[in-house]
Every structure is written in C-alpha cells, then in structure tokens.
C-alpha cells in the first residue's frame, strides 16, 4: 500500500514535469481580454504558419482570457505572459508601474500607439427594438434595463462608461452636476454588473436579462453572428468613443523565456495585411487603409471622441472615475 502510494505520487510529479519538458518548439503566452477569444484563435494559427515559413520554427501560442483589469492583475502577480493584448492602455500602464516587467514607454514600441486595431461602443437591443432605444438619452430613462459590466474589472465597461460620460458632457455643455446626474440615472438602470464583457453578453443574450447591452462593437457583431441572427439588432448611437485596445511585449518575461524576437514579430504581424484581414473579419476596425476601405460598409459611421481629447488621457480618466473613491464609486448604488 505504502509503495503504491509513493509510486503514485512520483508518477504524478513526473507527469507534472512533462508539462514543462519538450521545449523544442517555441511557446508564447498571450494574456488577453474577454472578447478577443475568436480573433486570436484564428490569428494564432495564421501567425504560426507565417513564422514556420519564415524561420522554420514551430510556435504555439497559448491564450488566457478574462476581464482586462483582472488579467492585468494576474500578470502583475506573476502570470508569465510573453505578450499582453488588453482592452485599454491604462491596464498595461498598471503592469509597467506595479511590476516593472515592461518599460513605462511601452506604448511607443509599436506603431499607432501600439494599437493595431480599434473598435467603438454600440448598443445591442432585442429584435424590433421594443423600447425604441436610439441614443444614450434612452438608456437613462426610467423603466429601461441596461446591461454593462463592472468598470472596476472590465476594460470594455470603462469604455462604456466614458462613452456615456462624453455624450452627456457634450449634451449639457460640460455642466458637471448634470453630467453626473445623467450617468447616475443610467447606472440606476443596471440590474447586474458582470466582471467581464463576455459575461455581460451572455447575461443579455443567453439569460435574456435587460433591454439593451452596451457593448464593444466587435462583441455585438459576434453575438449576432453566433447566437442571435434575427433576434438581436445593433443600434449605433449619435456619438461614441474611439476604443483603442493596445498590445505589448512583456519584455522581462519574454527575455527570460528567450522569446523577445518572436513575441515582437507576433504583435507586428497584426499590422500586416493578412493580420488586418483577420482583425476585420472578427469585426475590429482595421488600421491599414487598404483593408479598412475594403470593410468600410460593415461598420456604422459614428462620430468618435477620444480619451485624450475628452478626458485628458487614460491616467487622468482612471484616477477621476474608476479608482477607489472616484466618480463611479459615488454614483453606483447596487439596485436593491
């Protein structure tokens, strides 16, 4: 009995070792946010093929997904990501500041603010738009149930919040009290805050809760494609926000893994034409002119403000609105 026990433990340990062995091929870990699952599933295969053709080496990319803020926290706590592809710059800033795993000026390392694709925030409503939701105004009306994730943990949720705030700010000519009142009314209509964008989508689509989902544009398109052809409609508001989900090599980790070169190539390939094609196919707005022109009629034309122009950058927006004691804490009262 005792011998058997020891044998069992030993074999288990050996098997655990087998996980780390066989390092002949290159392994990358991409820690990403919620709605990019399908995008990177396809992109990883395409990149592996490209890299094999270029260098002959086999590269396997593993994925981890979750709310953007939560994923950043995991990387800070030691999740060994070679690259991060998160929902907003502030989350990668947080990694740089709290863990010094990558330089503070990481955003200058790749073109276009290290953002190979953009997106925006739109509304997803049920068929026929029963509550006649046309613009942000309609979300703050009494009797409308709004689904959006928790800005504390989700990047998409922070874009949602800022888009609403920017709209109100324009509408009320920057009158802080009125803007705050508007956003408070909107969040009064939120029955449940999921921790990530994908959780909110399943709450809205699968569990049938809420009249409108504030969502990433790509996530809304995907939800319709996967689940709700004919049951759901996208509504483009009069104004929204230019969402820039950035990417970065986690330099210290990549250096330790010996993957600095391939990690950088992995992100650079996102900017290439084949990369941008995959990006557009998964409903992100491509950066490359030629690909953007090809898919132009797919994306509704919305007037977009940026975080820099409307909020003075992410660091400031984060501090004012989402840090503990910020505006969000002041306005959000869980519905009873």
């Amino acid at each position: 009995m005792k011998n058997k026990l020891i044998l069992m433990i030993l074999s288990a340990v050996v098997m655990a070792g087998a996980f780390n062995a066989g390092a002949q091929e290159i392994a990358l870990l991409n820690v990403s946010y919620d709605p990019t699952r399908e995008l990177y599933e396809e992109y990883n295969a395409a990149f592996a093929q490209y890299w094999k053709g270029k260098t002959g080496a086999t590269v396997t990319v593993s994925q981890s997904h979750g709310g953007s803020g939560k994923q950043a926290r995991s990387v800070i706590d030691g999740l060994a990501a070679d690259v991060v592809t998160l929902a907003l710059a502030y989350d990668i800033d947080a990694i740089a500041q709290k863990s010094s795993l990558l330089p503070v000026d990481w955003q200058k390392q790749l073109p276009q603010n290290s953002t190979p694709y953009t997106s925006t925030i739109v509304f997803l409503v049920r068929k026929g738009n029963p509550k006649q939701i046309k613009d942000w105004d309609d979300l703050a009306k009494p009797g409308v149930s709004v689904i959006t994730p928790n800005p504390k943990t989700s990047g998409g949720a922070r874009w949602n919040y800022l888009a609403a705030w920017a709209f109100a700010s324009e509408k009320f000519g920057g009158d802080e009290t009125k803007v705050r009142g508007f956003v408070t009314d909107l969040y009064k209509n939120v029955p449940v805050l999921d921790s990530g964008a994908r959780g909110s989508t399943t709450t809205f689509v699968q569990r049938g809760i809420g009249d409108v989902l504030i969502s990433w544009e790509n996530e809304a398109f995907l939800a319709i494609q996967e689940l709700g052809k004919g049951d759901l409609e996208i509504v483009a508001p009069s104004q929204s926000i230019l969402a820039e989900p950035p990417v970065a090599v986690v330099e210290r980790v990549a250096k330790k893994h010996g993957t600095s070169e391939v990690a950088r190539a992995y992100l650079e390939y996102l900017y290439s034409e084949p990369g941008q094609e995959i990006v557009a196919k998964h409903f992100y707005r491509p950066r490359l002119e030629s690909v953007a022109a090809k898919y132009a009629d797919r994306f509704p034309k919305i007037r977009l403000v940026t975080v820099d122009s409307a909020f003075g950058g992410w660091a400031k927006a984060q501090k004012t609105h989402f840090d503990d004691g910020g505006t969000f804490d002041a306005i959000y009262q869980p519905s009873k």
Partner: protein
Amino acid sequence: MSVVIGKRESIRTRAVQCAFIAAALLFLFFFLGIPLVSVFYEALHEGLRAYGSALVTADARSAIFLTLLVAGIAVPLNLVFGIAAAWLIARFDFHGKSLLLTLIDLPFSVSPVISGLIYVLIFGMQGLLGPWLFDHDIQIIFAVPGLVLATIFVTFPFVARELIPVMQQIGSEEEEAALLLGASGLQTFLRVTLPNIKWGLLYGVILCNARAMGEFGAVSVVSGHIRGKTNTMPLHVEILYNEYNFAAAFAMASVLTLLALATLVAKSLVEWKFADARGGSVRYVATMEKKIS
C-alpha cells in the same frame, strides 16, 4: 367520542405527513432533478457525435488530464496528513489540541476565493516569495503546483475530520495490546489500526476526491486560465460556456456530473457496508457536508 377524535387526529397527522413528503419531493425535483436532467439534455441534444467530439479536443483532454493529475496528487497527500493528524488528536493529549482542530477546520469556513488569494499573496510576484521564485525560474501560481496547493488547502479537512471520531470511538486498547505483545509500531499500524479505520478512511478519501475534482473558486484564482495548460474541468466548462460553445460546455459538465454520481454510489456503498460501526460519525459528516455546501 374519544375514539373518533383519535381517528380524526391520525388522519390529520397523515395529511401533514403527506404534505411534507410532497413538498420535499417537489423541492428535490425542481432543485436537483431538473438541473441534473438539463445538464445531460443540453450536452446530448446536438447528438452523440457532437458530444464525443467536444470531449476529445486538445483543450478538453488536457483539462480532464489536469483534473485527474491535481486530484491524484492532492488526495494521497491529504490521506497521509489526515491519518497522521487523526492519530495525533485521537491518541494524545497536548496543549493546543483544540487550536489544531480549529486549524484543520479552517478550509471549511474560509471562502475558496480567499484560499486561492492566500497563495497569490505568498507566491505572486508582489508577494513574499514571488521575486525570488521569478529570479530562479520557478512557477508556482498560474501553473500546476499552484493548482495542487489550492486543491490541497480546500480538501485538507476531509480525511482528518472523518477519521478523528472513528479513532476516538475505537479507542486505543487494541493498539496497546498489540504493542505489549511485541508488535512494532508499523506492524501495529498496518495490522490493527488500519483495518479498524479502513472504511472511515475510504469514506474520507471519496469525499476528498469529489471536492478536489469539482473545486472551482480556489483554483480559478491561481489558475491564470491558460487554455490547454492550467484549466481544470470546472474552469474549462466556464470557458466553453463563455465562448458560446454550449453543447461542449454541457458535455464537459456532464462528465463532471457523472464523476459526482459515481462518487455518490461509492459513498453509499461504503456507508452501507460501514453503517453499524460508526453511526455517529456518519451524522457528523452529514452536518459537515451541509456546512460546506
């Protein structure tokens, strides 16, 4: 007259009895029966082929393997610990004994999320040992060792808590007799103690294993959710569900459910075999189970 009243009362008590039984059955049907059936319905409604192919994908196989691996390490370790702790507590009196008992119970009362966070605080990069581990290329959390540690923590009390009352009930006379007759410590343990506690031990191991394979909260915190690498079966179910892959999610869930049902059968068998010897401790386990769930 009095006979009539008696009859009426007995009818009334029977009516009350029936009402209670009906309420309990309805409750069981809605809260256990329907979910159980719907797991299998959702898993199978796209056909057996879809069901099978959902379970043989690389990620699914790795999740199943990882779950078995984690349970395969955590359960034997807790078995050894459980015997040692139970023996210590049942056979000796020492200062701090009740403190030790409380500590053994700790994982029952602490939220699994906290159990996971403890390890993040110790082994995480911002934690106590994190920077040293990083420099020496040792990955504990967000890797298999972290999953094992978290699982050991949450399944810690099962074997010990099961054995303590059994050993106390049996008493130490037989062991003392064996020692007086010249048996060695090991002989006493293998020939006297182990046969006496084997059913209780098995029972504890079954419970421990069930929890180890089903644990979600604690492993979710330390997993890092790297698909194909650090996703156990419960975590994989969540991922598939979030990817709109409902049939596959329920297929995986149905495997977990089958494991749970097999555990229940094994548990009942052991209980049935062992019912006379330890009625008291069965009741104790029942209350502990209620506490956890």
